[in-house]
């Protein structure tokens, strides 16, 4: 399945990416990794968060690969800004190691997930694809942990850490969509959800896409986060 099928890219055009990292060899390394992938096209590079933000504004990529530690504006700040201004752009955080805190922050900031900088090529490509297709991008455990924390924060925090201006979804979610969303929040794949509800994968995907759209999220992870923040769903106490 290529990138051109389904997902956002719809209609065969390759997905457009930007890379933001303050080290040039990191950028070139990633470029190397991604060269040869037909469905991916790198349309720009940024050396700091500010540049990344401007670049996204200009190029409107499908996905931004974002390093965290960058001068002038760090990756999370940039991610937030990008999500505020261009919510349809997905962001994947580039990290050197898996750290819950990092990742939680990243997800809260709006990232779809993360990918390790030294990941093998296939992993990198798969991660990007998944995001673009709206699939789960975080490994199960991490996802669960993160989402639990999110739920706690949502419950316990004095003020919900919503982005300024965001109140509720433009359109309310249907009951079915909420159900599916709950399972997304559990970290289940589309296939798993399809089996759960005894519906087709395609139907699940459609629900997920609708939810993403209604919540104005860029991907399923963000949709789950949004729903939790808005208390549309509560983290299932399983």
């Amino acid at each position, binding site marked *: 399945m290529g990138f051109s099928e389904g997902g956002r890219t719809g209609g065969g055009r390759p997905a457009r990416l930007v890379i933001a990292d303050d080290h040039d060899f990191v950028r070139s390394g990633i470029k190397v*990794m991604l060269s040869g992938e037909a469905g991916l096209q790198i349309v720009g590079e940024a050396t700091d968060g500010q540049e990344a933000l401007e670049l996204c504004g200009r190029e409107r990529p499908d996905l931004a690969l974002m390093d965290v530690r960058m001068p002038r504006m760090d990756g999370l700040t940039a991610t937030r800004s990008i999500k505020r201004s261009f919510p349809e752009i997905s962001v994947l955080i580039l990290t050197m*190691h898996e750290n819950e805190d990092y990742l939680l922050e990243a997800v809260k900031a709006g990232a779809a997930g993360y990918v390790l900088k030294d990941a093998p090529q296939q992993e990198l490509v798969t991660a990007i694809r998944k995001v673009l297709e709206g699939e789960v991008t975080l490994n199960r455990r991490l996802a669960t942990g993160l989402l639990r924390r999110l739920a706690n924060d949502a419950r316990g925090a004095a003020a919900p850490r919503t982005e300024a201006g965001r109140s509720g979804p433009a359109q309310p979610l249907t009951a079915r969509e909420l159900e599916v969303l709950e399972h997304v929040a559990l970290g289940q794949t589309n296939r798993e959800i399809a089996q759960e509800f005894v519906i087709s994968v395609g139907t699940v995907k459609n629900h997920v896409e609708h939810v993403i759209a209604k919540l104005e999220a860029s991907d399923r992870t963000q949709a789950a986060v949004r729903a939790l923040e808005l208390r549309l769903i509560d983290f299932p106490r399983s």
Partner: protein
Amino acid sequence: MLDANASACVLLGYERDELMERGLNHVTDPTDERWEVALSGQERGELDLRLRRSDGSVFAAWVVLTGGAENDGDPLGVVFRERPLEAEAEQREQDAAARVCRVLVDTVPDPGVLYGADNTLSHLSPSVGQVLGYDPEELLGISALDLVHPEDLASAAHEARAAASGKSSSPLRYRHKDGSWVHLEKVTSNLLPHDSNAEGPVVDSRDFAERERAEDALRQTRDRYRALVGDSLGAMAMVEPDGAVVYASPAFEGVLGYASEELIEKNVLDYVHPEEEQRARETFVEASRSGGPVASEFRMRHADGSWRHLRVRVSNYLDDPSVGALIVDLNDVTKQKKAEEALRQSEGRYRAVVEQANEGIYLVDVQTMSILEANAALCDTLGYTADELRRLKPYDIVAHEPESVDRNVRRTLEEKRSHIGEQKYRRKDGSLADVDVYAGVVSHADRAVLSVVAQDVSGRKRTEENLRRSLGVLLALREAGQILGSTLETEEIVTRLLTIMRGVSGLTAAVISVEDEFGQPKIWREVGLEGLWRKARYASHAEEARRAVLDAGEHQLFRLQSPEGSGQLVGLCLPLRMKDRIAGVLEAYGPESLAGDDAVDILRSLAAQAASALENARLYGELAERERRLADLIGQLFTAQEEERRRVAYEVHDGLAQVAAAAHQHLQGFARFHPPDSEDGQALLSQALELVQRTVGEARRVIANLRPTADDFGLGTALRIETDRLREEGYRIDYESNLDEDERLPVAVETALFRIAQEALTNVRRHAGSPRVHVTLDRLEGRARLGIRDWGRGFDPAAPRVGDGPGERVGLNSMQERVALLGGSFLVKSRPGLGALVTVEVPLPAEEPDKDEGSGLLIAELGEDS
């Protein structure tokens, strides 16, 4: 004739010598045939025989023959008594009585007369003549009534007839020779054994004016009468001057155990104790020479063999023809003598005991309340001589109210013995002695006498007082030892030491001074200084003493006069020796008792204990301090290591790891797009890939467990991450900030504040047990403020943090250091039980230029113009 006694001679009318020349047949009546029978020994016992006088007259006699056994050699003893014939007998009886009476009358000093049957005066005592002025011969044969005053005749006649015996009559007047009238009392005694016509009352006339003497004389008369007639209470004997017994009264048996008959013809001297025989002999001799009685004492042998003490009175009746012997009056005074001896001995013993007694003993005459005797111990106690004491009364030596003395005397008299109790007696020098007094009643001669024992207990009391004090001191020292050994808190040590000292020695004040950096003693701790006058310690004596102690290390004693002159204070300075140097001075101020040796010793020992305890405390403090510093250093070391590791990790993370990853990626790319042709090339590439992979792996390890810091996300985010983590762990923690989400502060500020926050939150986690934590980050006018508030146990910021691990102490210190480096302030407020608040403020530079790499981006367009 071998021998004859005087009576025999008299009765027979011979001189003794003459009688010796005659034979027995000369004195026996030849006409009396019964003599032959008697002499033959056929009849014994009392025989009625006649004896012949020298003038040839014969008289009857009771005769007893003794001895003269048929064997020759045994002399015959003839004991005879005149047995006058009927009429003669009566006459003789009368004569004998008359003789006796005459003797009596004559011996009595008062005038006495004997009446004959016709009431004529038959005999007059010489004293009649003295009283009435007549010679006795002139009055013989006349009637006594002729001498009586006519007016008294009636009563005189009546009395004469009544012949009352022993009664004294009313005084009658008798005519003196010179014509005057003499008043005389009459006492009529009928001395004859039976009534007869020939009775002859004896009239004792006495001078009315000498009545007392007369009564006494009557007594004596009766005594004599008794002595003569054998009715004596004591034994009476008639003896020759050489001691031969003529007659012994029956009472003899009671005194000496011999029947009176046994003694006749025996010699008294034979019974006398050999040691006193000579004296007895001389007594008889003297008595025979003198007219009046002679008294003596000697021991005589009782029939049972024991010696009896006898008091003896010998009267001379030798010249009295009817007596012709010495009258010896004996009284057994053995018991008396023994009693006297015992008494003497016991008195001697008593005296010895009293004299040697440790207790003072004195005797008081109750009636006169004067001191009769006093022993040596009392003299010593009171400082008087015995003579001086005998001139005093108890009131003079008892230092209590006289009424109480009298009360005690009365009580003792009633109860016979009493324990008066502890009293104070006054010495000669006026000082007081403590005595324990017992009193008892003794009889001394025949007066009521108190024996008072006054035991000097001043010494005992002093000892008791000393003992009590020593015990108190001992207990205090023990307590001091316990206290000093139980604490290492210098404050406590010193305060307690000073308190103990005060208690033990009755001090007014105690001060510990320590040398300051200039070598001057400065007060460190004190107790009771408010009790001294203000400048007391600055008196020259005190200053010198302190100096001397510091220099020489010897204790110093001095005295201070109070400014009002109200008293003297004793000051004592002792060195506080720690190890081999004198670290300070212990000053003690108190009453005179402080100057005593034992007070100095006690204080010295306390000071030594305290000095060692202080030294211990100091060493411990030093040790603790060193340990703390060590812990600090170790903590810092750990932290430094930690930080270094982290720094390295971050550097690796930032640099090496990424480079390695990128290198790996490039190499992979190369391997994909430009695979080597040759096998060698491929092998080389594979190897290169492997190496790079390893590098990546190692780098991974290094950067493992790195947590995001403020560097990564910004201070605000980082704080949020931290607080979120704590919330995860269940703490109720919230975070507020007036910073925008993306707002950044200068890197150094962010790093420092983040680290501080981390430490503070770690503390919260470890110690506070707080239910709630509140974190704030605010940007204020020109500065950033970080606040962390917890509602945990809290602590006293000033107190040393006991039990803190090195991390905490390091934490607090390093926090302060960081902030100080930034020119900020670090404030910790806490109260036990109320939680803690950490407030850090750091100044922010006016502008916020990016200091990181690539600072300043110059975009210049190079145009044809420039």
